[in-house]
């Protein structure tokens, strides 16, 4: 099979082997996935915090 490489400095997908994904020098998806999950979580916290920064308070009686 002809091998074609995508020349990205950050993300290298080796299509010839079909399983090598190099993310900043990390190849195990369970490891780089942890980094991705961390950044997504920060994005989630920041987005939620920003959207609800002026949210009207629910009535205390609701509890």
């Amino acid at each position, binding site marked *: 099979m002809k091998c074609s490489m995508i020349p990205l*400095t950050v993300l290298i997908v080796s299509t010839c082997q079909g399983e090598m994904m*190099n993310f*900043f*020098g*990390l*190849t*195990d998806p*369970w*490891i780089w996935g*942890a*980094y991705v*999950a*961390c*950044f997504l*979580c*920060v994005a*989630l*916290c*920041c987005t*939620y*915090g*920003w959207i*609800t*920064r*002026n*949210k009207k*308070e*629910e009535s*205390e009686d609701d*509890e």
Partner: protein
Amino acid sequence: MSNGISMEIFLPMLAIFLVATIALGWYGYKNTKSNQEYLLGRNKSNSVIIALSYGATFLSASAVIGFGGQAAVHGMSLLWLCFLNLFLGLFVAFVFFGTRTRKIGRKLGASTFADLLGKIYKSNGIRAFTAILIIVMMPIYCAAVLKGGVNSLAVITGLTQYYDLILIGLALIVGIYVIYGGIIAVMYNDALQAGIMFIGMAVILVVTYTTLGGVSAANGSLTNLWDSGLITGAGTLPGFDGWTNFSEFGSNEWLTVVTTFLLGVGIGALTQPQLVVRFMSANDDKTLNKSMIIGSIFMITIVGAAYTVGALSNVYFYNNYGVGAYQYLQNLHLGTDFIIPEFILDIFSTVTFGDIFVSLFLLSLICASISTISALMHTIGSAGGFDLYTLAKSRREKKPFNSQSIRINRICTMIVMVLVVVYCYIMPSDIIAKATSLFMGMTAAALLPTFAHGLYSKKPRKDAAVASIVVGTASYLIWALFINAGSSIFLPICKWITGSKVLFMNSSIMYVDALLIALPLSIITMILVLMLKKAPSKIQDQEAETVSG
């Protein structure tokens, strides 16, 4: 090995820091007029203070030194703990627990975590149990954090011969500002310390990657260390597959990393009494929501940097000394808790203005330690001086009583300070991460279902809460003391009785953390009681219908 830092640089930095700490302690003292202000300090909190205080309290020297050292041994799989800290410890904690805790806490007039649970369930027993759990278990965690700070300070300054003096000095500094300044001094100092920690850890991450040739090159080198068999996974268990690979599923290594380090601390964060108080200190939900922005950026920087740098220290030590981090420290007769301090000292010795950065890092570690210790001391002191004192006096006088005595709180905090120092001397070495996991796991197993039920149920059931607490606590203690090899060292009852460290030696089960067993049991117990036993009010209604019918 480097011979300590430049005292000419570090001492002036430390002096400025101490002056600021004392000034904030004084500010707290001047603004603490009532016991409510001593316990919650609502009038002086805002989103930035809450975010930084929450983050700095959550992430102690235990996270940087203890878990950073564990990352050097077990690798980057610990980054999942960073994710759990962010997702469970911040997002879920604030969105699903924080706002309800704040509202219910304010509605019921609760001042502490034990007080909150006691008032939700209208149970002095639950309040007393929670307070006793805090008083008995939290000093272990507090002592672990204190040891982390002192270890760093002693190694980096090269003053290991003054270990005792540093330990007592650090405890005294924290104790004094907590005793006099209360929660306001604790939170404002947390914010100052968080700022220093943030700068310190960010600098270390950048310097580490720069020294090792960039992000991809450094990570690639770490992968290569294992793949090429250049160094072995010393200090790990069977199933370890290199620092940039997750360990083999179900192996002893996997069980230790996932159940003890990831789940124990990840889930345990939700029921941390010192963090719950931060929610109750907020004036409104908006303050809590806004806190998440700063809190998340702070947390990923501190924890992400610590775990990444910890794992990468292997590359540095191999390049310079031909051995991995664990082996290098073993050669110096030091354990995993010293890996990060030693690495920082060594890597900055080759960098321009390295002394300034090392001093900054050391200061940030001191900050990480004392921000958490102060919050823990305040929480333990409040559990004794407010919760137990209130309950004891109510019982003696046979009428409801709510302690308003700041003095009693201060006396209790002082006793706690002494107790924590004593704990430091009787605790085994290399225990920071495990002690943290033990405390967090124990509180989660005992209190998480009760806390969640109390917050979300319209009519919280005391019988279900008590059953869940009893089963969660008993199962956690039995597993931790008799089955799990990591936690049984704290109180070797199994060895005293059977002569063996744990009941099932040479079995994978000895690597399973108690939380993995105790928390599901605690949840199942609560659900079963809720389903099988009808609420007292319903039974009374049905009896009334039968009588009238």
